[in-house]
């Protein structure tokens, strides 16, 4: 029996099997169940998806989520590009230190970081007190319980994720092309905008999609820094499940999120080998 099996199935698959079984049974199973729930709970039909157009609350939450994700992505990728560019062009020792700072911030717990922002941005937080002390502002600025606070916290979290794919991309570029451009008389700016920027496009696209995907399902920072005033999809799902027990609505939103993420992953795989994005570069 085992010999017959060996003839047709490569022995490698036996090593893959335990984890594959675990994922299929305990992960894929309930996810398919959620997709199923979205069209059957509380009764069969598309009424959960109808809420997208009929319910103002849900439409507003989705709009808030998309808006915050787009702004977060734009800022994270822009700031990340500066960092990645400077890192690639720095001397090796400096580069090492920069990478260390980047990775340390990458690994600091999300809860610790959110807590710190809570301390910094509050009404009597360090930022407001500092600004008042030096006389820049008379009244404390409201950083929290609004989108500004959520954006600060999210961009701060996402920048390292934006840097890593762009860094990988920039490290593989052929720098002779830039020298050639300069030798042929192009200015530094021309070389950057006409040669360098187009060459780094795959990295930029991969970073944007990655940050957007991660932002979509973000829970901790919006829940704490938004203080209930900025409701995003992830928090709304948790309220539906744990407080109002509406599995149908939650399942519909989860399905939307899932399809959105899968579509973007597919797009991303067109631009970059996915394995290089997920930490191949961190080691």
């Amino acid at each position, binding site marked *: 029996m085992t010999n017959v099996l060996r003839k047709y199935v490569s022995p490698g698959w036996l090593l893959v099997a335990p984890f*594959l079984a675990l994922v299929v049974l305990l992960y894929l199973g309930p*996810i398919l169940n959620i997709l199923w729930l979205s069209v059957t709970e509380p009764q069969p039909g598309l009424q959960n998806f109808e809420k997208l157009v009929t319910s103002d609350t849900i439409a507003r939450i989705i709009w808030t989520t998309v808006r915050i994700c787009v702004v977060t992505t734009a800022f994270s990728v822009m700031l990340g590009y500066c960092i990645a560019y400077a890192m690639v062009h720095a001397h090796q020792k400096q580069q090492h230190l920069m990478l260390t700072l980047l990775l340390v911030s990458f690994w600091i717990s999300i809860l610790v970081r959110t807590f710190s922002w809570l*301390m910094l941005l509050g009404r009597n937080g360090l930022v407001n007190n500092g600004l008042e002390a030096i006389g820049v502002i008379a009244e404390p600025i409201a950083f929290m319980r609004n989108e500004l606070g959520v954006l600060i916290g999210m961009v701060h979290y996402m920048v390292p994720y934006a840097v890593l794919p762009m860094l990988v991309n920039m490290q593989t570029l052929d720098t002779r092309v830039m020298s050639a451009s300069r030798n042929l008389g192009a200015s530094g700016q021309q070389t950057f905008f006409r040669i360098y920027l187009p060459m780094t496009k795959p990295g930029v696209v991969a970073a944007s999609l990655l940050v957007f995907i991660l932002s979509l399902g973000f829970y901790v920072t919006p829940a704490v820094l938004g203080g209930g005033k900025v409701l995003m999809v992830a928090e709304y799902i948790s309220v539906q499940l744990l407080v109002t027990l509406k599995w149908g609505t939650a399942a519909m939103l*989860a399905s939307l999120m899932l399809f959105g993420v899968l579509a973007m*992953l597919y797009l991303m795989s067109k631009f970059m080998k996915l394995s290089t994005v997920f930490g191949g570069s961190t080691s």
Partner: protein
Amino acid sequence: MKPSFLALFNRVGAWVLLLFLVLPALVAIPVSLTPKRFLSMPKGEFSLRHFENLFTSPEWLSSFGQSAIIALSTSALATVLGTLCAIGLWRVTSKYSELVRAFLLLPLIIPQIVSAMAFYRLWIPLGLLDSYPGLILAHTILATPMVLITVSASLANFDPKLEQASRNLGASSSTTMRLVILPSIRPGVFAGALFAFILSWDEIVVTLFISKFNVYTLPRRMWNGIRENTDPTVAAAAVILIVITIVAFAASAILSRRRAQIENSIDT
């Protein structure tokens, strides 16, 4: 090419940004030293009372212990499963292997809130809610893709001829695995174990859904502390977490340096 003004500006900007990434977290340090009973910046006076509270409170200590148990078990399970899986996928030469690899990485990229919902949904009928096995299983599924990535990266540098040589010299498949393959991918395995540990140690979204009273991990207690926003003990816990992160980071840096040395010695 001499650096232009813009390039210089960008370099300074990048350093400022990097400091912006790291420094805000450090605000937990002064807050944890406040002598007051509520969250505040210390003014002139410092006190270690909140650290004392952290290390004498049975709740916080039990959370530390529970998180350690869960993270260590997760790390052990994920390392075994992920390493086997990476070696398996590396061995098979099939057009499906890349597809299976992509599928197995999904738990890492699917939004955690969706994963949380999935586990919550299945753990109810299985009776795994609010139990160690429930949390460890869920965290293992989320963390194994990390190990898969790091071990696969190590395997990409491993010369398959070494395996053939070992087999040709008469070693069995399991002996080859033990004496040839595993030693040469050890850095990847260790890095994966570390990443899996951190992921579980730090996991909050799934944990919020599938734990309640019996199991109360450190992130869960911190989450509560942050929501209540009064007790400075949470700042002391944050400082301890920062210290642990930096120690773990130093460990992984040493590992990857050692890996680089091993690779160099193989090349030369």
